[in-house]
């Protein structure tokens, strides 16, 4: 059990309740000004779209997750990304709960001495998050009915 506890210690939380705020993103960027080996940051932000589905407009997405499994999977993804790309750091935040159309539900942030590594890693992380993390979005229409989202 000792080993298990040690591994769990390294597992970072990625979940935030509700939308990711622009001020949170700014703080996260600002914190990197002391890491003067960084030459490029790549950021991806997922924003909730007010899609028209049939004749109904999406007003919000409500996110839920199998949190423990998602964090373990994210830990694996993190280790594979650091093994493959020369990154200085990597941060991921995924919303849980309700995120209104126009708000941000995913924030992926990679930094590296040289731009190519940061950009490639960021793109790869986003694809892995969409395909491999047990997270579900419920599209809530303006009339309060809903449907379950499907990722492309």
């Amino acid at each position, binding site marked *: 059990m000792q080993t298990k506890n040690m591994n769990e210690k390294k597992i970072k939380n990625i979940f935030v309740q509700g939308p990711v705020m622009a001020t949170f993103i700014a703080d996260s960027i600002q914190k990197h000004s002391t890491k003067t080996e960084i030459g490029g940051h790549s950021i991806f932000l*997922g924003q909730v779209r007010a899609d028209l589905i049939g004749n109904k407009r999406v007003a919000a997405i409500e*996110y*839920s*997750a*199998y949190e*423990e*499994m*998602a964090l*373990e*999977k994210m830990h694996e993804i993190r280790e594979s990304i650091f093994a493959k790309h020369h990154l200085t750091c990597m941060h991921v935040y*995924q919303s849980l709960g309700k995120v209104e159309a126009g708000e941000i*539900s*995913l924030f992926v942030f990679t930094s590296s001495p040289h731009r190519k590594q940061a950009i490639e890693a960021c793109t790869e992380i*986003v694809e892995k*998050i*969409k*395909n*491999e*993390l*047990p*997270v*579900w*979005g*419920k599209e809530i229409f303006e009339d309060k009915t809903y449907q*379950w*989202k*499907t*990722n492309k």
Partner: protein
Amino acid sequence: MNVEIILFGQLKDIIGKSIINVNDVDNLADLQKILQQSYPALLNTKFVVAVDRKIVSGNIKLSNKNEIALLPPFSGG
């Protein structure tokens, strides 16, 4: 043996619960069969099974110490 199964996403809607109990099952193939008999709606639903937080396939042994979950297609991000 009695196993507890955690449901996520639209599976909670389809089955109407977030946890179900299945009796007399000790492998994944039997579990799938019992689930489809008890909840025919699952036949039309895509999902994968996670055992102890890993997606599994094929027929594996199950015990009541395993954490078993049914996961519909992911749609985070």
